[in-house]
């Protein structure tokens, strides 16, 4: 495993960071400026030892203090000069890194917003979050500090080296002896850091995900008294995280000492060789002093070289994780066939030989389904649990795409309708409610840009939410808990209904939207909806006969096919699944009558 890594070329160690190119290019002007500042600031930095050397050579002559004082002042001035540029370096390079972080995160968000539902089912929230926070962060550390330090140190290194060469080629060459060993060491360790760091990030995701799920499902955990089990599980993951961290530490702990041993070796060489040269009068003490000063200037860059190498490895591992998400296909997107002329929809719907399955190894959910809904009709779907009702309606706003056949609206394949137009014309109330932790009012007008109180009043009246709101101390300004947690089940469902009504959709789809509503309230809502649904195409999914019986047409789905269709009376007469359902619901009631 490690061998394979080692054999790979250098690119493998930070090849993923190449993807940052476009961001760097965006700020190339500022970055170039930053690099110039680095050079300028380092010119100042390397000039200081030269001044010291001058002062020393003067000292040895023991003549006057004039030059010494002059050099002392010059040192301070030079440092001020270098300091100004080091200020500018941070103001350019580090600031750019924050901007790139912003851009990267924005692109990340823009990207995942377009990803299909499938993606969100396969990746837990905690996992996605840890990409958006930790991974982007570690890439940022590369863009900012790592780039800054490596360029800074690189420039310093080269400058110092050329000065050293000019001072004494022989001594410099000797000093460089340890360098190749250092490079080899860095190369060997880096590849290992990469994989260990990735393992840590994975565990961290798991820690996040587990905590996230536990806290979201705390009601279940509490009611079955599973707290201790959960604590055990969490401790186990924490422990694994600890182990993986220590695995990395074992490597990282090497960096610091090795680098200063190597730097120290150079130091010893200077003394041995330089000392010898002084003894032989090949070198002045001033030059040796300058060498020593330059070397101590180099020690830090060398040590930080290890640190930078380490950061680059982590950044690369993180970038790899990010690229995996960036490479996720949109699946559901507009294409060259998209007809951008379409600005509005009428609302007739047709399914032509539609087949659908979630995955190749999962059973077919819809098998060659065809039907037609005229504009303005109200139709209903009934069928057993898990038969594919939700899957079917999800194909209309393209939450999923059909795997066979086509779904048409106004005779146009939904794949050719601009997604924005398609979805803003469909009011879908998903079977599972989700509300944002915002005010109730903002939740209701979520789908529109300018929601007036009149509109809110209108849709809450239809959804029969107004009476509930009256009892809330803050009315519509009540701030909901996460996912609407502080509302009762029925209140959540009706808020979600009101939100769909508010966008004034051409097509209204209610996926089992009354399951948590009592029959009296449901009756009231249906009465008002009837008025609202005039001239709109409506689709209702329900298990209750009372909810669907007034529809223009009822479809029964069974085993992936539409097995019955017609009005309530027709289907009752037909004597199939629907009639059976009808009898059962009647029977229940009769039984109770007899008691």
């Amino acid at each position, binding site marked *: 495993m490690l061998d394979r890594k080692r054999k790979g070329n250098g690119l493998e160690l930070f090849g993923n960071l190449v993807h940052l190119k476009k961001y760097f290019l965006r700020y190339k002007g500022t970055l170039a400026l930053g690099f110039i500042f680095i050079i300028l600031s380092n010119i100042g930095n390397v000039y200081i030892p030269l001044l*010291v050397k001058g002062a020393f050579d003067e*000292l*040895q002559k*023991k003549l006057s*203090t004039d030059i010494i004082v002059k050099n002392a002042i010059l*040192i*301070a001035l030079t*440092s001020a000069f270098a300091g100004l540029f080091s200020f500018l370096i941070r*103001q350019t390079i580090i600031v750019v890194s*924050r901007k790139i972080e*912003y851009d990267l*995160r*924005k692109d990340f968000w823009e990207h995942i*917003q377009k990803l299909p539902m499938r993606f969100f089912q*396969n990746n*837990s*929230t905690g996992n996605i979050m840890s990409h958006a*926070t930790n991974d982007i962060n570690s890439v940022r550390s590369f863009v900012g500090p790592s780039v800054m330090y490596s360029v800074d140190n690189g420039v310093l290194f080269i400058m110092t080296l050329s000065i050293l060469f000019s001072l004494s080629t022989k001594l410099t060459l000797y000093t460089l002896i340890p360098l190749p060993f250092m490079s080899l060491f860095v190369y060997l360790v880096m590849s290992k850091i990469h994989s260990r760091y990735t393992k840590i990030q994975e565990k961290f995701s798991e*820690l996040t995900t587990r*905590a*996230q799920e536990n*806290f*979201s*499902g705390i009601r*279940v955990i509490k009611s*079955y*008294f599973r707290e201790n*089990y959960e*604590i055990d599980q969490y401790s186990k993951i*924490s422990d694994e*995280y600890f182990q993986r961290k*220590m695995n990395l*530490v074992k490597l990282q*702990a*090497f960096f*610091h*000492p090795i680098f*200063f*041993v190597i730097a*120290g070796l150079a130091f010893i060489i200077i*003394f041995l060789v330089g000392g010898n040269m002084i003894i032989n009068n090949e070198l002045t003490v001033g030059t*040796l002093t300058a060498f020593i000063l330059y070397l*101590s200037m180099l020690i830090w860059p060398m040590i930080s070289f290890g640190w930078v190498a380490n950061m680059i490895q982590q950044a690369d591992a993180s970038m790899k994780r990010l690229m995996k998400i960036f490479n996720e296909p949109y699946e559901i997107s507009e294409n060259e066939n998209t007809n951008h002329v379409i600005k509005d929809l009428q609302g007739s719907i047709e399914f032509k030989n539609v087949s659908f399955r979630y995955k190749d190894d*999962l*059973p077919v959910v819809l098998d060659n389904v065809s039907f037609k809904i005229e504009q303005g009709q109200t139709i209903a779907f009934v069928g057993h*649990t898990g038969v594919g009702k939700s*899957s079917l309606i999800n194909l209309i706003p393209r939450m999923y795409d059909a795997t066979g056949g086509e779904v048409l609206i106004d005779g146009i394949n939904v794949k050719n309708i601009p997604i924005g137009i398609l*979805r*803003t014309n469909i009011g879908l109330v998903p*079977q599972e409610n*989700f509300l944002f932790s915002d005010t109730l009012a903002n939740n209701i007008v979520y789908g529109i840009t300018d929601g007036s109180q009149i509109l809110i009043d209108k849709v809450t009246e239809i959804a029969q939410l107004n009476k*509930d709101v009256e*009892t809330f101390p803050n009315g519509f300004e009540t701030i909901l808990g996460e996912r609407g947690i502080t509302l*009762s*089940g*029925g*209140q959540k469902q009706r808020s979600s209904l009101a939100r769909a009504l508010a966008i004034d959709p051409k097509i209204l789809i209610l996926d089992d939207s009354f399951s948590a509503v*009592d*029959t009296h309230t449901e009756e009231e809502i249906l009465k008002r909806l009837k008025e609202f649904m005039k001239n709109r195409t409506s689709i209702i999914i329900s298990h209750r006969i009372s909810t669907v019986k007034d529809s223009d047409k009822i479809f029964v789905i069974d085993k992936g096919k539409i097995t019955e269709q017609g009005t309530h009376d027709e289907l009752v007469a037909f004597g199939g699944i629907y009639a059976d359902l009808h009898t059962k619901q009647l029977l229940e009631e009769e039984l*109770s009558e007899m008691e």
Partner: protein
Amino acid sequence: MAEQQKDDEILGKAYDSKIMRRLLTYVKPYKKYVVMAIIMNIIVAALPAVRPLLSKIALDTYIANKDYNGLLMISMIVLAVLILQAVVQYYLTYYSEYMGQKIVYDLRVQIFKHVQKLALRYFDKTPVGRTVTRVTNDVDSLNEMFSSGIVQVFSDVFVIIWIYVFMFGMAWDLALVVLLVMPFLIYATMVFRKKVRETYRDVRKHLANLNSYMQEHVTGMNIVQIFAKEKDELEKFSAINGEYRAANIKSVFYYAVFFPVVELLSAITFGLIIWYGGGEVIQSKLTLGVLIAFFQYTEMFWRPVRDLSEKYNVLQQAMASSERIFKLLDDETFIPDAENPVKLEKVKGEIEFKNVWFAYNPGEYVLKNVSFDIKPGETIAIVGATGAGKTSLINILTRFYDIEKGSITLDGIDIRQLEKRDLRKYISMVLQDVFLFSGNIKTNINLGNDEITDAQIIEAAKTVGADKFISKLPNKYEEEVKEKGATLSVGQRQLISFARALAYNPQILILDEATSSVDTETEILIQEAIQKLLVGRTSIVIAHRLSTIQNANKILVMHKGELKEMGTHQELLAKKGIYYRLYQLQYKDQEVVRTV
């Protein structure tokens, strides 16, 4: 929630001795590591300080006297010192990191444990993301303080002290000259600290906003997409993201100013050494070797000073994180167990509510003066309009929340006298809000409880009619379940959550809208299957479909938090009250159909 928001702005003092003392209690178990680290630190700190001394000797004694062998010897000593330093440094890093990570582990588990004990009231008002941050990022940020922070600060302080010791030893007057710069350095650091603190608060706040935004919108991404709000949301996101960027850029400024200032001060020190020391050398009061050693010391001295101000940042972060963590650990929103709880070996299942008042928010009563009793083995049903308080009624029975006034008893014992574990062991609830965990079907039914056998799991699944679809899945009961059960239909999820309750084989079963998303056929099958199961057990059923509850021994009709009617189906019909009207509504259409 507003209160929670502030949590992330907690800045605390940069150094709060109370918090520090509390943090140090976590270090206690690792005392020996601390001692070890400090000893190693003294060594590691002393060794670099020795080097300039050796170089002085090399220069003044050996090179000046052209003694090459002496030079060789002293080089070997330097090498030995170096290697020793490297070895010690390795272990120092390793063990201090080890200690830091161990403490982080301890603290993480402790926080998690604490959160498990917190009452639902806490979860109602706290976004999940924030609590998650406490057990993940916040704890992790302490690691740096424990591992590199504390130890490094020690080592930096030692380095500085050692350097001064050596400098004073070599030439006290020159050392004093070097000290001249100190007041300026301290002043600069103080100004820097103040500024950085302000910007740090901003950064924290905007980061918290960013995280909770992302967390919430990832969870609700389907709503964003259904309403085609991607563009608006991206704008909102960019605004938050932009604020975060601005706060960060602001803090870059202070760092950008501070570091050059430190460099400048260091250069001034150089100048001073040359100016003063140079004069001394000319007057032959000082050797060149000493001067060179001083240069090296100065260079060495500024490194830790710079480090210390970076460490200051770590310290500040750690202080803020630990304050938030401690605030969570001090949050005692518990449902406490009684001091001397009554042990319940067996339960008959007699429940009584006596004048119960309950409110989620003080003063806003959701249940008002509710009284009723359930005899062992009875099935009772609760009906009422949405928001009437049905779910609340059962939430207080298992002590998810405690009541304000009145009492609830199980087998004649006040539930507050029982252990929660006992109480919840005997009562299983099918919650209205279905929640599945990632894992597989099996772990979702037994919730990791090994005492529930596979046979029992399958039995439970069969009873609720879930076995049919499970056996069609490629991996049957081992089929992977995604977060929140996303790849199952809503009805299927509800069946699994129902099976879970049955698998636990409770004496008292509570069904809150347990079949609301299930088709009628399955529902009837469940009812029949459950009828047998329920013999001898107490059960409470909440349902909107009246058909599902008519067999109940007693029906409670809730209305706006009050118990309005109570009795059997027939009694309530005869009463011609709320129940009668509900019933009429629900069946009038079928009535019509039937009479046709």
